[in-house]
């Protein structure tokens, strides 16, 4: 290969995100560039700390890295719009916004301002809202419940529903859920939760994933690393990223419905929340991010508010006009 990049990601080697996003990207890049560019994937924590992939690229330790804007939300809340937030658009609408209606350009501009070239590599399906030891059917059921979650959802749960967000490190979630040390946990989409075994630790599975309707991963490089590439390679790598994202999402859909079937045929009870309750949760999430954007604006940083306005405008059109779509749901 003319160019070889060692690319670490923020999840362990072998996990669905790693295989479905990063390995698939490596294969697609190899295919489209006829082997001129080699992507060597690395799992979390081997080359750089799991959550510091962006820093690793910035410091020049690695040429490129794969991670998610979720990890940047604490530092700059505008990333929440790209990371997928509680009450936000689902994967269908979101991927359309990203590729067709301004989302991708907004993300790339944001990263360019940080000195990065970004490529969207991976958009995900909706997560499971909770594996739970208690049945949750109404807002009242959430009150006082210890819920392992993080990020915006933790704040929504505490402020709007009186639940008790609990911090549990990844290696101990299974044990604490099984021993009923926490009541509910959320982790990832159905197919990613299956190998974690949470369905063996707790009876109830709560859907839909209002808290994380979709999620986005990206590959970032320093702008100068990108500029140094042969010009004919750039569109090929960009196309490889795009194909990876499309294939990855479709693969998630396929694996997820099979995982749901596995859950349903086992000992679990799947609770699908009432539309009214879903609306209540959605509204709370949207209210949270709107207030966040306003607070940013008052602090002299209007970018998040402007982005959110464009995001909401697209979502409004999608919501109003997408009823023609056949969705095949019971």
């Amino acid at each position, binding site marked *: 290969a003319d160019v070889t990049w*060692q690319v670490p990601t923020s999840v*362990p*080697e*072998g*996990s669905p995100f790693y295989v479905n996003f990063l390995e698939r990207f490596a294969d697609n890049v190899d295919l489209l560039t006829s082997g001129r560019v080699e992507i060597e994937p*690395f*799992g979390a*924590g*081997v*080359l*750089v*700390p*799991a959550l*510091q992939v962006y820093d*690793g690229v910035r*410091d*020049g*330790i690695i040429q490129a890295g794969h991670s998610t804007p979720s990890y940047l939300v604490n530092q700059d809340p505008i990333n929440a719009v790209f990371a997928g937030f509680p009450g936000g658009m689902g994967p269908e609408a979101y991927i359309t916004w990203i590729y067709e209606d301004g989302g991708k350009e907004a993300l790339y501009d944001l990263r360019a301002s940080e000195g990065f070239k970004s490529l969207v590599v991976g958009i995900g399906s909706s997560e499971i809202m909770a594996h739970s030891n208690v049945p949750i059917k109404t807002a009242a059921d959430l009150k006082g419940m210890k819920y392992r979650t993080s990020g915006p959802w933790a704040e929504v749960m505490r402020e709007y529903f009186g639940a008790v967000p609990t911090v*549990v*490190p*990844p*290696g*101990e979630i*299974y*044990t*604490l859920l*099984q*021993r*009923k*040390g926490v009541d509910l946990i959320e982790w990832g989409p159905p197919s990613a939760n299956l*190998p*974690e*075994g949470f369905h*063996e*630790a*707790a*009876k109830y599975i709560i859907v839909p994933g209002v808290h994380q309707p979709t999620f986005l991963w990206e590959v970032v490089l320093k702008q100068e690393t990108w500029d140094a590439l042969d010009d004919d390679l750039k569109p090929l790598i960009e196309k490889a990223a795009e194909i990876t994202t499309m294939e990855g999402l479709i693969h998630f859909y396929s694996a997820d419905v099979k995982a749901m079937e596995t859950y349903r045929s086992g*000992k679990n009870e799947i609770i699908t929340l009432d539309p009214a309750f879903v609306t209540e949760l959605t509204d709370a999430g949207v209210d949270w991010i709107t207030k966040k954007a306003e607070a940013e604006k008052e602090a002299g940083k209007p970018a998040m508010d402007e982005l959110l306005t464009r995001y909401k405008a697209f979502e409004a059109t999608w919501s109003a006009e997408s009823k023609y779509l056949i969705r095949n749901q019971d």
Partner: protein
Amino acid sequence: MSVAAFMFPLLFVLVLTGIPIAFSLIVVSAGAGLLAFGPNAFGQLYGSFYSAATNFILSAIPMFVLMGAILERSGIAERLFRVMQIWLGRLPGGLAVATIAMGAVFAAAAGVVGAVEVMIGMMAIPAMQRYRYKNSLIAGTICAGGSLGTMIPPSVIAVMYAALAQISVGELLAGMMLPGLLMIVLFIAYLIIQGMIDPPEAVDFVDDVTTMSLRDKLWLTFTSMLPICALIFAVLGSLLAGIASPTEAAAVGAVGALLLCILYGRFSLPMLSESLKITVRISAMILLIVAAGTMFMGTFAANGGSRLIRDAVQAAGFGDAGMIVFFLLIVLLLGFVLDWTANVLICVPLFAPFIRQAGIDPVWFGTMAIIVIQTSYLTPPMASSIFYLKSIAPPDMTYGQMCRGVVPFILLQLATLAIVALFPALATWLPDQIVGF
């Protein structure tokens, strides 16, 4: 030949010239890092150091060490071993059996290896030395008892292994249970048989308790056993009842030990300060090895270490049995120098696809891999459990004695491995019965 292939021999040379393990690892990692990352190597090495320094799971280490240091000073261990001499006096090797039992009990509470070993070592070494046990037997018993934390659930290693191999955590934990019990039974059976042939106690310790009245014996037993049972109950119970996570259970243990110390009137500020000093010294030693091992893993991988192993497997064209043996040997070899986290991070993703493709039961293989990881802790010349023991061993206990002492236990672990290999049902039957709610 890749750089990765030279890292191990260089490391062995440094270690054998007497450079501390952690610093040997760092020298080799820095060399390999400079080759892979050039001037950015220090950033990469710092990242590995940072990963280790921010790993929450490792918090269990200082807390278990603190628990051991306090218990050692509380007089509880003395009383406990005196009670054992009353009741187990006629059982040769009773103290060694008790040490294994204690290791098993705290193994059930701890997920991390060095922690339990140092804790029970601090209590059991003085007791066994008082009865003139041979140093090699003392060392072997403590290393073996302390390493049980890997096999007895909850085990952080198993959780991480399962996540990386994409298999069920519950099934792997259940799969390890019978082999873990088998191992404990083998250890205890060995110690009893060995004790009957050649009683390890070199003093006749029954004498000083024959003059005690039954009433005094019972009272001493009650006042000694009750608190230690309460402590075990607090640690294990808080975990099983979902009150504390495995790491938090270690904190419960440390505070419990402190309360017992106060209860027995042994608490003083100098005593607490001394315990903290020991905690910091031993934790710094263990965690620097973990951090250095993480650096070693990162630079090993960046220099094509994984590819080296993967190519070797493909080139060799093993059958199923040959492949399993080869993989387990790699785990054993890496286990000599790497902390278990690094070992699992490198090996599991590498092996999992081959295992899946060959249709080998992943829970069975995982159970065997974890037995081997545990064995690698014990196997000289590079054995974490011996390193940790060295940090608390009395000066008259030599490295040679430690190495000799662990041999019987290594053989017993290999026997366990062989039994699991021949009878896969030992690992695969229980998960089918109990996983679920």
